[in-house]
């Protein structure tokens, strides 16, 4: 089946699959967004417990999606994996550190004799949700602004900036994308909590959470606007499909959006859905905003990744040596590997199906204060 597809089609298919996994990750970072709201929304211990236990049942899903995103990029686009991780060393290391400390924090935070104390584990969660997501956004921003690397004839990478990737965080464009992601994750986190917690008897807590949705959208908007306006006016890294030569093209990303109407529709529909999620949550008192916001975030994510990688565009461009830039065609695995991996990818719908089923089963009943303070409290996060 997949073996009959040509290499170009497989490369495009895998860019779509990786973009989908990456976009699902951008939705699932509602966990990280929720973590940054812990101190702001959880005034009493029981409120904090509700937040932690609600997010704690999902954190592994986000974490696993990140790991899968890395693995899928490694399998399908190993040159990107080697160039970006080996080159932008510090930015990736810092991101990973924030996920290392996150992984223990849910389990360890409330356990007696936990050595570092409850507050430190909460700080770890905050750092993961803020610094971690900000840096991920900055790293994704370099898909458009470029990075500082040179590849030699054997494709070995040399990074030309001593900050080794951290310089990405000093670009206003990258920073804007990062901050947008942080605030978007926070509004998603608040919408998830509204959907997942039974607020009976905790109306103030509910009101604070509902308010956080709108406030975080308002905080996200300026950064989103800056990102979008910059994106459509900036020069981009175009690739000549015949020669593979990379050059700067004026208004490249606007041209990409206009020549790929579906991507433009994804972007606009995604933004509308996120805003509708906020509106329905904040002004109509609904608790299902997370589904609109989540789907909207996935669509926006897809639009961003497709704009970066399709329509003869270098998705990981080099500012230092234009011809070292990576495209989905020169950075990919071989035809055989892409074919084999495509068969493996047939498992993704199965995985999605059981994840959705179990999620539905576990969330059929909302988390209550009685659950986190009652007899079984010792077994909770």
């Amino acid at each position: 089946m997949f073996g009959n597809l040509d290499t170009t089609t497989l490369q495009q298919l895998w860019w779509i699959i990786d973009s989908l996994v990456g976009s699902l990750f951008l939705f699932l970072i509602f966990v990280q967004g929720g973590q940054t709201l812990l101190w702001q929304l959880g005034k009493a211990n029981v409120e904090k417990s509700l937040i932690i236990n609600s997010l704690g049942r999902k954190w592994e899903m986000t974490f696993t999606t990140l790991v899968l995103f890395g693995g899928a990029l490694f399998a399908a686009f190993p040159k990107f994996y080697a160039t970006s991780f080996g080159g932008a060393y510090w930015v990736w290391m810092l991101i990973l550190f924030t996920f290392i400390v996150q992984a223990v924090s849910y389990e360890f935070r409330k356990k007696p004799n936990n050595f570092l104390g409850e507050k430190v584990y909460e700080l770890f969660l905050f750092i993961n949700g803020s610094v971690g997501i900000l840096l991920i956004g900055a790293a994704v921003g370099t898909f458009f602004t470029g990075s500082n690397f040179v590849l030699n004839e054997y494709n070995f990478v040399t990074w030309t900036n001593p900050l080794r990737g951290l310089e990405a965080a000093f670009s206003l464009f990258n920073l804007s994308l990062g901050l947008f992601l942080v605030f978007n994750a926070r509004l998603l986190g608040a919408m998830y909590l509204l959907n997942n917690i039974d607020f009976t008897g905790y109306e103030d807590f509910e009101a604070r959470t509902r308010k956080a949705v709108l406030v975080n959208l308002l905080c996200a908007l300026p950064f989103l606007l800056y990102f979008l306006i910059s994106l459509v006016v900036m020069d981009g890294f175009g690739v000549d499909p015949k020669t593979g030569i990379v050059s700067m093209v004026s208004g490249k990303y606007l041209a990409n959006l206009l020549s790929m109407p579906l991507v433009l529709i994804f972007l606009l529909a995604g933004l509308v859905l996120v805003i509708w999620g906020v509106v329905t949550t904040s002004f109509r008192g609904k608790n299902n905003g997370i589904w609109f916001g989540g789907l909207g975030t996935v669509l926006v994510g897809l639009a961003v990744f497709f704009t970066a990688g399709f329509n003869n565009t270098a998705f990981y461009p080099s500012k230092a040596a234009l011809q070292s830039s990576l495209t989905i065609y020169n950075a990919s695995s071989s035809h055989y590997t892409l074919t084999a991996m495509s068969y493996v990818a047939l498992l993704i719908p199965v995985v999605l199906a059981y994840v959705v089923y179990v999620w539905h089963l576990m969330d059929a009943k909302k988390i209550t204060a009685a659950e986190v303070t009652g007899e079984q409290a010792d077994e909770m996060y």
Partner: protein
Amino acid sequence: MVEQIDLSMVNWARAQFALTAMYHWIFVPLTLGLSFLIAFYESIYIKTRNEEWKKIAKFWMTLFGINFAIGVATGIILEFEFGTNWSNYSWMVGDIFGAPLAVEGIAAFFLEATFFAVMFFGWERVSKKFHLFSTWMVAIGSNLSALWILVANGWMQYPIGMAFNPDTARFEMQDFWAILFSPVAISKFTHTTSSGFLFGSLFVITISSWYLLKGRHIQMARKSILVAAVFGLLSSGYVAFTGDEAAYNDAQKQPMKLAAFEGLYDGEKGAGLVAAGIINSSKKVGDDQDAFLFEIRIPWLLSLLANRDPGSFVPGIKDLVYGNEKENIMGADEKIKKGKIAVEQLALYKKAKKAGDSAGAEAALTVFNQNKEYLGFGYLNAPEEAVPPVSLVYYAFHIMVALGSLFPIIFIAYLFFTLKGTIIHQKWLLSIGVVSMFLGLAAQQCGWIVAEVGRQPWAIQDLLPVTIARTNLTAGTVQTTFFMFVAIFTLLLIAEIRIMLKQIQIGPEGK
């Protein structure tokens, strides 16, 4: 190819990978084994409806959860470290190595992550049977994730199902099934997971023994021990069987590793197995010193285990470094010569191709193809560089085997006295049981030292030395992250141990 090799950076990167892998491997074997034991306890609960078994399952689940969290924390860095510290490796073999990592994510990690939440928080939210199903899914998911990472590791030890593409200067996959069902991958998976089952059983025995010595939670401890001793004993047998298979594969595919862990410098027919001995650490390959200061050998056994023939020839380090014409063994010295030709011709091929000189490219490619099997040796400067640190590998192997021989005896004794109903009176055995987990941990770590140090200097056996596999980083950069990892992992380990000890002290009855 690589103009300047910063050896100190390579060594720091090696140390960092060893550090993160060894920390990770404190927690993983427990996840592999304890997850199945919990599934057994819960299955008995569902079958018998006896609440005591539920309490037992929940208690071990609490300890499992604490261990699992830090296992995840130490694991994420390993996947990304291939990119950060070994980016040339990631490019040169990513076409092959990336696939199992992606499959691991799709086929295993999601299984663990999805059902983990049900296992811990689903007691009142799903049916008993679905809860049991979820517990089994966590156990199966954990072990499936081990399958894929060990397939990847097995391929590094025995690279098959691929070919070198001179145009892209990388190795490319040609046969997915050959990689998945490689004998080395299979024995790695079976040996590693069964040793995890064994370790999980020792963990249960250690804590249960402590309870029995203290006279606390006696029924729970006895029941836990009964299941763990049976599981541990069966696993011990399987560990021995798969260990033999792993050693046989080493003899056939990585003879230098076998020679190193046996301290065998001079190959011989009817070679004996070193049952015990003190190795001469000042011995160098090719000198006249004795390899051992003291040794006890079992005649012919090494030949029998290595080749299934007691009279067969087992090559020593010297044969593998300098060659042995009589036994038709090509030495590393000869391979280096051929490897250097391969490296040189690859450069000429790329140069000619760039210049549009197709005749020149063709000629270079022909010579390259004749020597490409030895490409990795072309980056070594001296044949002695092909020898791993012999003393470390030798002691690690013999400690692992000695401890591996002790564990079935411990399990048999526990099973005997538990079935007899007198386990609580066997203070001597319970005292051994209390330390048995730490012996198990030592055996686990030694096993990985044998596997990974024993294949140095190779990242990919015979094809890619670690000096070429590295990222172009300064030693200072890698040192900084090394110490960052030391600090954070040590802090988290201290926290984990303190929490674990407190939970054990609290016991299954809760506060």
